[in-house]
């Protein structure tokens, strides 16, 4: 960026290259690049053990990468993690507030650790928006899973961080709470907060502006969420009608068809080769009870496709 105010791409909030983490001989995260623009909701998708948590921890300075470099909020991720920590809110996968402190005491502790002004006011506001004002003297350990998640989110936002790193924040949370959670995320994003959120729920991927898909420590795909499916080049047919169970079994063993997945009352049949897929489904195209339409591939199909490609790596 220049002092003359020349229009340039604003600096990404996270800009890291070649991040690598090795445990023993295993590369848990392998040569990982990531650029996250300001105000984006960036989804980290991937199966369990794919390196999502490790990557988040490296970005906020909780783990030292064996290799790699870059910046987070303009600071060096390797040498300036002290500064990064002041502006980042990190919500851990496992509840990591103090179970033997009350809800109020936890929030006060966090506020003090960040040296926040108007502490009492901030804590009261947080409690009110959580709807836990009445229960602020309850021990945090006695909260149910969903409430713990909400409290943890609230605690990591107490210092108005510019970047939120959320590690599977909706795991074990009921659908209503999940929806509310995502509403909060979008509100924050509108206010300019950048959010990096990991999940293994495919249906949450659509909530993100960008998606990085990780498996076995490698980033397989990365881009705006609406372009992911087309990037992969997958073709999908939707079929509705009767006898889908039998059909599904038959289709699965047909060459040219990579995956068959049930969506409510329909089946989605996908394959990487458009022509081969068309040929594969041809025998059933004219069956009277079945209604076939070509549709756009969804994220879920895209990810299952990706998973199949890398299966061999998993040793």
């Amino acid at each position, binding site marked *: 960026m220049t002092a003359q105010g020349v229009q340039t791409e604003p600096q990404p909030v996270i800009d890291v290259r070649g991040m690598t983490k090795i445990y023993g001989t295993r590369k848990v995260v392998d040569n990982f690049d990531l650029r996250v623009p300001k105000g984006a909701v960036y989804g980290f998708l991937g199966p369990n053990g794919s390196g999502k948590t490790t990557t988040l921890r490296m970005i906020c300075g*909780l783990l030292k990468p064996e290799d790699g470099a870059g910046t987070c909020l303009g600071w060096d991720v390797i040498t300036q993690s002290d500064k990064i920590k002041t502006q980042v809110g990190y919500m851990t996968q496992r509840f990591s507030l103090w179970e033997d402190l009350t809800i109020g005491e936890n929030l006060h502790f966090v506020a003090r650790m*960040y040296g926040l002004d108007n502490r009492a006011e901030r804590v009261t506001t947080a409690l009110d928006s959580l709807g836990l004002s009445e229960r602020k003297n309850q021990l945090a350990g006695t909260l149910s899973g969903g409430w713990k998640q909400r409290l943890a989110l609230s605690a990591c936002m107490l210092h108005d961080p510019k970047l939120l790193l959320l590690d599977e924040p909706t795991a074990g949370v009921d659908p209503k709470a999940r929806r509310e959670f995502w509403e909060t995320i979008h509100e924050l994003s509108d206010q300019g907060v950048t959010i990096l959120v990991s999940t293994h729920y495919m249906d949450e991927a659509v909530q993100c502006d960008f998606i990085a898909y990780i498996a076995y420590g490698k980033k397989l795909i990365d881009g705006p969420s609406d372009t992911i499916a087309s990037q992969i080049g997958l073709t999908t047919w939707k079929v509705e009608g009767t006898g889908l169970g039998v059909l599904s079994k038959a289709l699965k063993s047909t060459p040219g068809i990579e995956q068959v997945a049930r969506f409510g009352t329909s089946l989605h049949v996908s394959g990487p080769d458009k022509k081969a897929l068309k040929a594969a489904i041809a025998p059933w195209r004219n069956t009277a009870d079945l209604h076939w339409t070509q549709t756009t591939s969804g994220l879920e199909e895209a990810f299952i496709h990706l998973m199949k490609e890398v299966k061999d790596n998993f040793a």
Partner: protein
Amino acid sequence: MKTGFSLARIGAILIKEFIQMRRDRMTFAMMIGIPVLQLILFSYAINSDPRHLPSAIIDRDHSAFSRSVVTAFANSTFVDFTIAPDSPEEAEAAMAAGKINFIFEIPENFGRDIARGTRPQMLVIADATDPSASSGALAAAGEIINTGLAREFTGALAGLAAGPPPIEVVLQRRYNPAGITQYNIIPGLLGIILTMTMTLMTAVALTRETERGTMENLLAMPARPVEVMIGKVAPYVLVGYIQIIVVLNAGRILFDIPFEGSKILFLWVSTLYILVNLLIGFLFSTVARTQMQAMQMMVFLLLPQILLSGFMFPFRGMPLWAQWLGEILPATHYMRLVRGIMLKGSDRADLLADIWPLLALIAVVSILAMVRYRRTLD
């Protein structure tokens, strides 16, 4: 499925426990290490019949008789004459500082009076804060003197050998004239109680956070290691003060233990000692992976603090290498300080030699803890 008593289920639990025991390398090492190391260490170090106790000799006579007495004491191996001060004051100062256990004072004309048969007096002052350290030498003193002088009773003096003891030994037990063991035990116990509780409190400080999963949260927040250390250590200083008050009052009420010296000085050195122990606990906490390991380390340190510090056995009675080991233990210095202040009324100048090791330990342990402190989850 069997619902009654099942050997299979016992077996299942047994196997699981063995597997877990084997995986916990530290516990395994401790199970073997503690008995072997400590058996070797303490069986050689501990000596309930202390010898070679450092002593001062003030010989005003310099006659053949006085030299014979001195040689006899030295040959007895009960005492080693480490200093020969010019004045009784100098000798007393060395005793107040805990450098010597005995002062032997031979008056002028000692030899002449023996020869005349007028039975001169010889003064033996013992530091009786630890009655067990001085008792052996004092019991043997008369016999040693007679043996030593017997060699001189030849020729014209041969008649003296048969008569009454040729000299009169005047014994003075300093600081604890009645030889009450509690006077020695209570200050020592204070040191042991503090090291036990203080180290334990902080030994689990970080491992507890790790085990509960809260460490990740703590590390994600912008706290410096030194802030964490001070914040974790400071509250327990108060706990230490409370323990001191309890022990001292119990000692005063139950055993009528005197308090000769400055209470301010006492509070000051106790604060140092509490800090050393809390910091050692914190250091353990940075090394150990689990609370269990931290406690094992604490026990590992506790045993030498009990056995080599001069609490159970006279410090000067141990072999030199064991004394060197004892010198690096905080409890050794604290016990000398507490006994000095409470029983001898020692002042700061007397005690400096035991104050600076505590300060040095605070510095060394803090630095080690900061080096060991893991700022990441690696």
